[in-house]
């Protein structure tokens, strides 16, 4: 690399006589790696003289397309300013490269579209929200039409896929949901114990744990875990299938994605979530039982005796009835978000996040609505 590692550009002092050409000498390695210092220098460079410029490229050691572009751009800018520029001494192969670049000059670059104003952005945001809700509604509608059609032809229900989903979303989730609800039972009993002890009402810890777990915590917590575990998986799976055009392939084969992807997931979750809720009811109360014995000295027999009086069947049902509704929300949001994925890998990530956040949000809101309704019904 003849003269150093970076690209250089130096002015040769102009001869004294009037109208003489100013000479500029280029040297060094005009490559992507050699250009950066020169590039910064060029921006603030004042070109001396007013007449003809002679650019001498004989000392350029290496020239790549980037260097050729910079040279070409500089010459073009000078010519636009009305200077006449003559290039000399360039090696023939460099000359050919420069010509190639000049012939491929596109541009300038495409002007970026003007950024919309604040009001326009707000409008676009609101509009996309409205359209998103409409699309979601139409997705829910399509799924239910698909469900009705499937019920009309029960042979088209894909039991294998449903059972596979039951296995993955339900059986495989047993350890984590059971453990968390057991811990939750312990925490509630522990928190209640202090307060109840002050009143000598130790035995009421049973009511506390059983009612809290059965009515609220167990269905809600199970739904949240499943939203994080299975809802996100549904979005990622369907989203990736969309990117790889598998969804389109399904359509061309004559299988609606609803039938193969959405319905089995929804039905499987609707089977699995109530079962998981019953299971976490049990593990949660077990957790409370263990804590009640160690902290308040309530024996297992006494606990179970009290349990019989503390809860009515309605407490059990009010908790359980929410589970299929939550299941539907999680499956529909998860699948809908999957179908909303557009082309890129990043979009899969965005939609998966949105899927989990939205399904948890909707689950909690629905839970609140249930509370109000049950309150009216005096349950």
């Amino acid at each position: 690399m003849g003269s150093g590692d970076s690209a250089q550009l130096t002015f040769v002092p102009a001869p004294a006589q009037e109208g003489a050409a100013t000479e500029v000498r280029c040297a060094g390695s005009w490559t992507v790696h050699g250009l950066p210092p020169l590039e910064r220098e060029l921006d603030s460079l004042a070109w001396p003289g007013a007449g003809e410029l002679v650019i001498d490229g004989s000392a350029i050691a290496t020239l790549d397309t980037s260097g050729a572009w910079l040279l070409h751009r500089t010459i073009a800018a000078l010519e636009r300013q009305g200077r006449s520029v003559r290039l000399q001494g360039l090696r023939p192969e460099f000359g050919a490269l420069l010509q190639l670049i000049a012939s491929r000059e596109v541009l300038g670059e495409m002007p970026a579209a003007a950024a919309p104003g604040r009001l326009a952005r707000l409008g676009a945001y609101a509009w996309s929200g409205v359209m998103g809700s409409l699309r979601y509604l139409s997705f829910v509608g399509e799924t239910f039409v698909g469900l009705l059609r499937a019920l009309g032809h029960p042979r088209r229900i894909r039991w294998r896929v449903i059972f596979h989903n039951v296995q993955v979303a339900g059986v495989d989730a047993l350890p984590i949901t059971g453990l968390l609800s057991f811990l939750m039972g312990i925490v509630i009993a522990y928190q209640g114990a202090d307060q109840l002890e002050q009143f000598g009402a130790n035995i009421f810890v049973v009511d506390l744990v059983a009612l809290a777990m059965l009515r609220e915590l167990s269905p809600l917590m199970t739904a949240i875990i499943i939203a994080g575990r299975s809802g996100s998986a549904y979005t990622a799976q369907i989203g990736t299938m969309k990117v790889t055009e598998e969804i389109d392939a399904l359509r061309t084969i004559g299988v609606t994605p609803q039938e193969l992807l959405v319905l089995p997931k929804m039905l499987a979750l609707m089977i699995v979530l109530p079962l998981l809720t019953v299971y976490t009811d049990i593990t949660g109360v077990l957790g409370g039982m263990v804590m009640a014995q160690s902290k308040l000295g309530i024996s297992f027999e006494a606990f179970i005796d009290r349990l019989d009086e503390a809860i009515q069947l309605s407490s059990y049902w009010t908790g359980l009835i929410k589970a299929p509704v939550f299941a539907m929300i999680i499956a529909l949001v998860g699948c809908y978000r999957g179908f909303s994925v557009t082309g890129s890998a990043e979009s899969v990530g965005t939609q998966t996040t949105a899927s989990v956040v939205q399904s948890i949000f909707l689950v909690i809101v629905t839970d609140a609505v249930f509370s109000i309704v049950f309150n009216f019904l005096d349950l």
Partner: protein
Amino acid sequence: MSASAPTPAAAAIIEVSGVHTRFGDAVVHEDVSLSVRPGEIFALVGGSGSGKSTLLREIILLQPPVSGSIRVFGQEVVGLGDEEALPLRRRWGVMFERGALFSSLTVTENVGMVLHEHTGLGERLIREIAAVKIALTGLPPDAGPKYPSELSGGMRKRASLARALALDPELLFLDEPTAGLDPLSASGIDELVRSLRETLGLTIMMVTHDLDLLWQAADRVAVLGKGHIVGVGTMNELAQSDDPLVRQYFHGPRGRAAWQQAWKPK
């Protein structure tokens, strides 16, 4: 990096010797050796599953062979760590079969990203250089601001090539440059490959099935079959080869048509 005709005397740019590759029990390569000379367009061909792409992946350090030696620019690459491989990686560009463009970036950003990572150039110059590379590969200027998902297959390949050319590599790897393209786009790629070699003085190694591309662009071709290199040479030499695998490859109905096509204009 001046353009030059292949000179057999010069040291090889890629030197593969005695490479063995196995996936479990399946032997892919046993004792594969070949060398690519500076400035030539070298093609690797072979039936499906003959391990062409695997060999390419081994050369570009995406996967190690079981044994053997691979030297690129005179440096042994087998067992090289990421840190030591970086200077080498900056000297070559790779165009993947399905483009492998970053889907969350526009075409211009895809090309610019390489320049951002490896050079200290300013934002404006990077965008301009990206536009030049995009133009060099024959894409229309309005392709720059588009996302890969908005491009057709052929445009995606060209965009991928523009990204491979971002750092003006000395060596270019092309994996199936014409696979999945219509004949018009494919013959555009033929010309592109040749003109890149002529104007930028690149050495090109490609893996391909495309017999037309081989006749039109390749200087030398190696045929991979049954774990060995069964023939190396110019297309004319290979067309006269007696090896059954080579004959099978070049004398099928399509091979003959491409051969006739190649001779017609001359």
